[in-house]
């Protein structure tokens, strides 16, 4: 029992420390948002990759970088309505 508790605590610690660590109730939207945010921050953090995109789009690197970070705000659209709040669409279908 103590082990289980410790595992639980350890997981919670990880979740607090590393944004995006999953848990059994991770929704599809959360997962996707998280993956997209990781991707954008990775592009912004690797100079050759950023140059590659900037060169193709014919934009300055600095602009591409700030656009990538801005996209992290809401990369895959708004979250699905919470249970009880939704009016028409059940959350499962909306989220996937």
């Amino acid at each position, binding site marked *: 029992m103590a082990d289980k508790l410790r595992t639980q605590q350890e997981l919670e610690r990880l979740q607090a420390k590393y944004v995006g660590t999953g848990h059994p109730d991770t929704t599809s939207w959360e997962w996707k948002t998280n993956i997209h945010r990781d991707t954008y921050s990775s592009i912004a953090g690797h100079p*050759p*990759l950023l140059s590659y995109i900037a060169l193709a789009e014919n934009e300055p690197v600095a*602009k591409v970088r700030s656009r990538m970070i*801005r996209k992290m705000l809401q990369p895959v659209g*708004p979250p699905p309505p919470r249970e009880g709040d939704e009016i028409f669409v059940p959350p499962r279908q909306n989220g996937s």
Partner: protein
Amino acid sequence: MATTSNMFLYSLTIQPPTAITQALLGQFSGTKEQQIITASGSRLTLLQPDPRQGKVNTLLSHDIFGIIRSIASFRLAGSHKDYIILATDSGRIAIVEYLPKVNRFSRIHLETFGKSGVRRVIPGQYLAADPKGRACLIASVEKNKLVYVLNRNAQAELTISSPLEAHKSGVLVLSLVALDVGYANPVFAALEIDYSEADQDPTGEAAKEADAQLVYYELDLGLNHVVRKWSDTVDPTSSLLFQVPGGNDGPSGVLVCGEENVTYRHSNQEAFRVPIPRRRGATEDPQRKRTIVSGVMHKLKGSAGAFFFLLQTEDGDLFKVTLDMVEDGEGNPTGEVRRLKIKYFDTVPVAQSLCILKSGFLFAASEFGNHHFYQFEKLGDDDEELEFSSDDFPTDPRASYNPVYFHPRPLENLVLVESIDSMNPQVDCKVANLTGEDAPQIYSVCGNRARSTFRMLKHGLEVSEIVASELPGTPSAVWTTKLTKYDEYDGYMVLSFTNATLVLSIGETVEEVTESGLLTSVPTLAVQQLGEEGLIQVHPKGIRHIVQGRVNEWPAPQHRSIVAAAANENQVVIALSSGEIVYFEMDADGSLAEYDEKKEMSGTVTSLSLGRVPEGLRRSSFLAVGCDDCTVRILSLDPDSTLEMKSIQALTSAPSSLLIMSMEDSSGGNTLYLHIGLHSGVYLRTVLDEVTGELTDTRQKFLGPKPTKLFQVSVQAQSCVLALSSRPWLGYTDPITKNFVMTPLSYTELEYGWNFSSEQCLEGMVGIHANFLRIFTIEKLGETMIQKSIPLTYTPKRLVKHPEQPYFYTIESDNNTLPPELRAQLLAQSGAVNGDAAVLPPEDFGYPRAKGRWASCISIVDPLGEEPKVLQRVDLEGNEAAVSAAVVPFASQDGESFLIVGTGKDMVLNPRQFTEGYIHVYRFHEDGKDLEFIHKTKVEEPPMALIPFQGRLLAGIGKMLRVYDLGLKQLLRKAQGEVAPQLIVSLQSQGSRIIVGDVQQGITYVVYKPESNKLIPFADDTINRWNTCTTMVDYESVAGGDRFGNVWILRAPERASQESDEPGSEIQLLHARPYLHGAPNRLNLMVHFYTQDLPTSIVKTNLVVGGQDVLVWSGIQGTVGVLIPFVSREDVDFFQNLESHMRAEDPPLAGRDHLIYRGYYVPVKGVIDGDLCERFSLLPNDKKQMIAGELDRSVREIERKISDIRTRSAF
């Protein structure tokens, strides 16, 4: 791990990346001199600007084997030396110091704070140091910020505290700077966006309204604690912050830059805002808003409040931004800001970093293309440029205002003094030997927009010719000599012809000398200044010794003649045709004394060398004798063992030239070497033991098919070997790495050479070729790649070569750019109305932009002509842009080659959109100098890959692979198959096998079955590789690079490969059971290596004369690398051992684990990092000894092996 692989490659960088991600100014040597630190890829480079010559010199370049994300410099109070903080992907913060004495970077502190890698919540993306050097803040894109307190202890050593956290979850950081607050508590300003509300709001309203916040973090030095001190909403488009001087120098605070918006903000001040002026011009869109992309703040010496900003927009326009302060009663500025002013300054290429030097120079590290070094002529203080002040504009960015405009103009305040070559971005690269020299050249296309270039890269040293004059006959040799021991410069130049000698005097003019005392009716074998004022001439019949006009002649014995001679300041030695060696030494009264005995050699002597007299000694103690029986002997010249043989070495061919000369070695000392040139064109360098005369540690290099001649010359005060074979070479010690390098000179063939020193030309060389006398110098050692560039029109996309002729074809396209026809139209319209029609050169000012428009062309490049240039340009019209190109011979046209170009119409890059795709066909005229458009064929999608295939064209169109033949009106579809999961971007083929590279789903092997005319995929990849380039290594294997910086080799399983080629196997292949939703077979990974740079092209070729095939890859940041295959297992074991010792003994500077770095995405497999192994020569001696001991070899042996593997296959 890697031991299981049976393929091993040795990775080397032959040209390091030239892209600069960040540049910093500082006094890193601890002197008043300002230096520039740049981060390019994984390299940290120290540059020394030279204001007198207007040049920027590289002092040191250090590969840290990690991705440098951000760098900052700081200085402790009271100190004169700047330290460097490195934020890399190691999850550690490193503080580095430059040691000018040993020219090294040395790490002072290394503190771990998180996981390695470039991650979202691991600090490293942003780094800012307090201007007073008391603290630094390192932050991640999201959430995490760590503050380290920097201090010094009682021993005046730098100390670093444990990190203080300033985390806030749900926050994205766009920009981060340290505030200048004088000696108050350090404050850092961050531009943040909070997404926590947007994450909770299903309606999406919160995301739309998300504001950018300017947040101050204060480090309370007393409490040792960081607090979020102040925050305020700023313009939502803001993306960049600049520090405003504080303390005694100014009001403190920040400039917040966003779209058409520069705002001054501080916690205790009003906000002031100016818009960014827009360009006025006939072709400019008056509605387009500009953003600041880079900038620099500069404090002027003297008065308080004297500072200005240079901010740059995406067009490259620099704006000078100044702050006006409220003045107190006495007219002195107070700390209160009154207004913000902006005006146009000049236009320079878009920079990643700008550095203003105190000496009045501007270093602009361009994001693409050459870096520039400018000098300030003036500061734009009193010119006629319109100045816009914040008085006229509302502070709220949403409020309405009238946009302001300016006219761009050529440089007025800045003067370009040096342009530093940079191959960044390198888009495509080919290796070909067009000039007919021994070694091939590298041709690449780089740059963007109108600053694009086609570059030729040749391995060699740049030579500047001073004189090339024609002579009456064809001389066989040339010497220069001083007249007395005390002369500074050479006095005579002696030319030997087949039956005469010509003596010329060196001075203002070169004139023939008749009363030199030298015999002019015979050919000469050697000329040497001897003793104090003597001069000797060795000719076949004797030795002539001239002292103050008196001539002493030593005749050769009867029936014998002199065949070879060598001399130095004190000694003369000659070889007779009978094989005897006669030795002379100068005695105390200045006359030559013959040594009693003659030494008989076994064969005819071909060459002799004495070596210079070592300083402080009377004689050189060794004589090297080369005989035609393929041996070299070392004879002693010591008085008690004169002409005794010390050692002998057998050679593969008769020696044609010998040279005893000492050179600097990697440990910093001097070593005596015997340099041997062979008849076969091979050059050898052997260590000559100064005591025993033993010959050890031979290194060799093949220079060319002609006999090698060696001469001692001096370049940059260094003794070097000039080696002449079918082309001239120079052997020298690299100034930075201290390794011995043999580099060809970019010069004509020479038959004889000698050192040359005169008043006008201190360190020159004289050489002869046919009946030409040439005097030349070498200015810079160490830069072994010569670049020549030809300007192109737009950003290049692909490079293809004519199959027979030395012409290249580039396709170029620029997104969001006005095409020439629309430009002309707009100009014609406006020209009638007003004077806005002046067109500025696009290289400096760029092309006018227009959303959704494409400007694209095909250029024919002639790299070999009198003046290398673009011969012709074919512009594409109708908003079409070229995306792929190939030269295809069509069997149906009797093998005539055509240029095929794939285009897309109205393309939008992200998300991928287009209206149509086309394949254009052009016919070559005049051997490829001209193109004739034949027809174009409409296809469903822009074809991203084209190659010739069995006398037809193979095109990758989306997921579809299609074979076309050439028809009269259009291309005719012959076969097709859907083979790739997403988008085909690269194709390779051999026989019936086609290798298809998908944009993000890896490689698929496809076989073409002519019987049933089907394209059938039979093997695919295990990983989703985001391919950028591929090349076939052999029939089974393919090498390629991906978008994340990996290079890999994949191989098809043997059975699958055979089955695919069996005749009639199509039924079996078609109905084979798919394996895990893919093709029936999987490819095996043979080699995987992380290069840091993004490979844009990869080719299999050889690079040196007689070298084996290597893989040459080019990276977007300008890197050129090679992968050299290992031949023997012993070498692999040796280098694997060496590599693991190097990892332990020379760990990367910023604390990244080397093995993990090279296995960033996939564990490194089958590759040994040559760049790491080559750092062996930079290790201190004791570490070298230790590694050598562990490897059971000598240090020299290890160094030889490292240099051998490089010189055998690469530069």
